[in-house]
Structures are given as structure tokens and as C-alpha cells.
């Protein structure tokens, strides 16, 4: 897990600065399969914060569409998408990041929202206009959490 140590290192490096460097939504670079290999923040993802954002109905709300036994304390898991049990054993980190950032580049035409994209759908409510659903840090946090979902 080379990237993690790199991310940890960069955390140390930027800790003197008040701002964490973030890749703007329009600047994220995808590989040909819709994966994103580089972290989009300079702060390592936090799986605990990631689980919270995953569950939160106003943030990831991932349970709306996905079963996840690790969050069995939450009632009502939707079934629009596949179960996320063991997701980290099925997908590489870069692909998982790409799926969270903009799922449409991995799954063409999917119903799954794009959580960190520069453009929103038409008629987006003023309150949300020009905003991403998740912040860059939340994307990395959710990713860190997804990476804990391994096949038993």
C-alpha cells in the first residue's frame, strides 16, 4: 500500500499549512476505465469519517441503493445497486475512487450519482448549485472506508 504511506507523508508535510491541497472537480484525471489513481486531497482518508459520510442521508446516502452488512446497525438498505459487501476485494483502489468521483465513467448511464463532478444536472436547486455532493475530503474518507470492506 504505497499510496497510503505517501498520503500519510503528505499529511505531515502539509500540517504546517492551514489548507489541504485539493484537486478541483474539473481537474480530476481519469484513466480509460474511469479510475482515478491519485488521491484528490493531500490528507489521507479517514475510514471512520468515511463511514459516517457513507451513511449520512444528506451526504453519501449510499445505503439508499446498496446493502452493506458492515452498517447493519442502520435500518433500511436499498437494493438498486449491488451489495457492497467485499467491494474492496472486487475493485482496485483507483477504480473505487473513480466510482465515487464520477460513477458514469465506470458504469455508463448508471443511476448512481456522481459525487464529485464539476457540473450538476439541469435545474439543480439554488442551494446546491455549483456544489459537489461530497467534498474532496469526504470522497477520500468514503474511499478509505470502502477499502475496509473486504471479503471475509
Amino acid at each position, binding site marked *: 500500500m504505497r499510496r497510503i504511506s505517501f498520503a500519510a507523508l503528505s499529511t505531515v508535510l502539509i500540517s504546517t499549512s492551514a489548507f489541504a491541497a485539493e484537486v478541483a472537480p474539473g481537474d480530476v484525471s481519469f484513466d480509460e476505465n474511469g479510475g482515478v489513481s491519485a488521491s484528490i486531497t493531500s490528507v489521507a482518508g479517514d475510514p471512520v469519517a468515511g463511514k459516517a459520510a457513507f451513511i449520512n442521508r444528506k451526504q453519501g446516502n449510499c445505503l439508499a441503493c446498496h446493502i452493506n452488512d458492515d452498517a447493519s446497525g442502520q435500518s433500511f438498505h436499498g*437494493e*438498486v445497486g449491488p451489495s457492497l459487501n467485499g467491494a474492496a476485494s472486487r475493485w482496485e483502489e483507483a477504480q473505487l475512487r473513480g466510482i465515487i468521483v464520477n460513477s458514469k465513467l465506470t458504469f455508463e448511464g448508471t*443511476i448512481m*450519482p456522481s459525487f464529485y463532478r464539476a457540473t450538476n*444536472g439541469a*435545474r439543480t*436547486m*439554488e442551494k446546491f448549485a455549483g456544489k459537489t455532493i461530497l467534498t474532496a475530503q469526504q470522497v477520500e474518507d468514503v474511499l478509505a472506508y470502502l477499502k475496509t470492506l473486504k471479503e471475509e
Partner: protein
Amino acid sequence: MNTLNKTLTCTVAALTFATALYASETDVLVINEEITIPTSAPAPEGSPLDKVISGWSFRKHETQALQMDDFDNPSFIFVDKASDQWTKVEGTEGKSCASCHEDVEAFKGLRTVLPRWNEAKSELYSMENYINDCRTERMGAEPWKWSKGKMTAMTALISLQSRGLPMSVKTDGPVEPAMKLGKELYYTRVGQLDMACSNCHEDNYGVMIRADHLSQGQINGFPTYRLKNSKLNSTHARFKGCMKNIRAKPFGQGSAEFKALELYVASRGNGLSVESPAVRN
């Protein structure tokens, strides 16, 4: 990665899973132990669906039960209020609905053909438009707000007269542009979540989305009483709610866009029996 296959597998799995908690299509809606209402019908021509299914079939048994007896159906509190309103004189002309229409039963069948083209007004008309024309032009009374209590109660009373009759809105002739607009709105992704009506109600009906069992989003039961807000909800109010959930700015209630969408959605359910006023969560 075959997206379609995945979705199909999910749908089948969810349907199998759901049979215990939710009614299946074979469940029959019998109201007051005497009116049997088919809750599915062959899909109308050109439909992307195999068959059309009432939203009732997707609700939990206890919600379904509320619609099976008019004494248990909370909508009827409002229907009773509308019956009182029916004979109430209002406006400068000193008239009530009953002054001209006598019996509300004469509106039997009306609900099945609305919205439709109003020749005199050269406009697509929903039931609310007809009612407000009578209030403003014939009674000299204030119009009612599209989705407010007096209006939804009255549309419930009038729609009830068609209960059990199949929906059959006209889709050709002068309403063609509205049909086209409605279809476009149905399939266009909107909002921060960037979804179209079709993503949920066509691609994923029968599947759980968090705590909700997705239906085809049919409107044969409107106005519907919702346990969530303890009142009757107009079709346009429901459209508004769905748009807000995906963080999209809704169109105005009574707007040309929502009327076009109402017509298009109604046409997708042509053949389904009117269940108004239905009960939903």
C-alpha cells in the same frame, strides 16, 4: 461489467425478497368488500413496460389495508368536506357547484380522460383548471390554490366518481406537443443527483430504495392521502416532492410543464383503474 445484467439480477432478487413484506401483483384490491379493482393491466401501446401496475401493489400490507375500506381510508374525511363544499354558495353570483351541476355523480368517467385539450381555451386542462374556471368565471369566486386543501378535496370527490374505471387519456391531436414535452421531462436527468423519473420508476420499480419500495410512479390513485403528511396530495405536489428529493428545482404546480408531465404519466398508465383517493405512505 454488464450493467444491464446486474440491474436485472438485482431486480429479480428484490422481487423475490419483497414478496413476504409487500403484496405481489396477484393481490387483489377489493374495496368495501364489494368493489374489485384490478391493480395491473396490459401495457398500453408503445409502452416501455411489460405491464402497468398500480402503486398500491408496492405498499406494505397495513398501508394497503387502509385503502380497502372507505371507513379506514382517511381521504374520506376530506371527501366529506368536499361534499359540503359542493352545495356551499360562494362568490358574487350567489352560486354553488350544485347550482349548475346538480349531482356530482354526473362526473363519472371524467377523471379517466384528464388532462385533456380544452378547445375553447386552446390549452391542456387538468381537473384543477376546470374547477377554477367555474369558480372564477361562473361563480365570481376566488380560485383555489392548485394543491391546497379545498382543491385536493374537490378533485378527490370528483375523481371518486370514476373509481374502478380504466384510465384512458387521449394522446394524439392537439395534445401531441404536450405529450412530447412530458416525455422529454420524464427522461431528462435533473438536479444535483442527476436523475430522471425513468431511472427510478421505469428502470428500478419493484426494488427497495432505502426504506421505500419503488413503484412505477403511476397516478391512477391521485389525489392520494399520505401518512407522511396526513393530507391529500395532488399529482403535481408529488412530482414536486420527487424533484426536490433529487435536488432539482421543481416546476410550478399547475405549470405547463407539470401538466404535460401529468398527461404523459397518465398515458403511461392508460388501462389502469382509477383508485382515487388512494392511500400511500
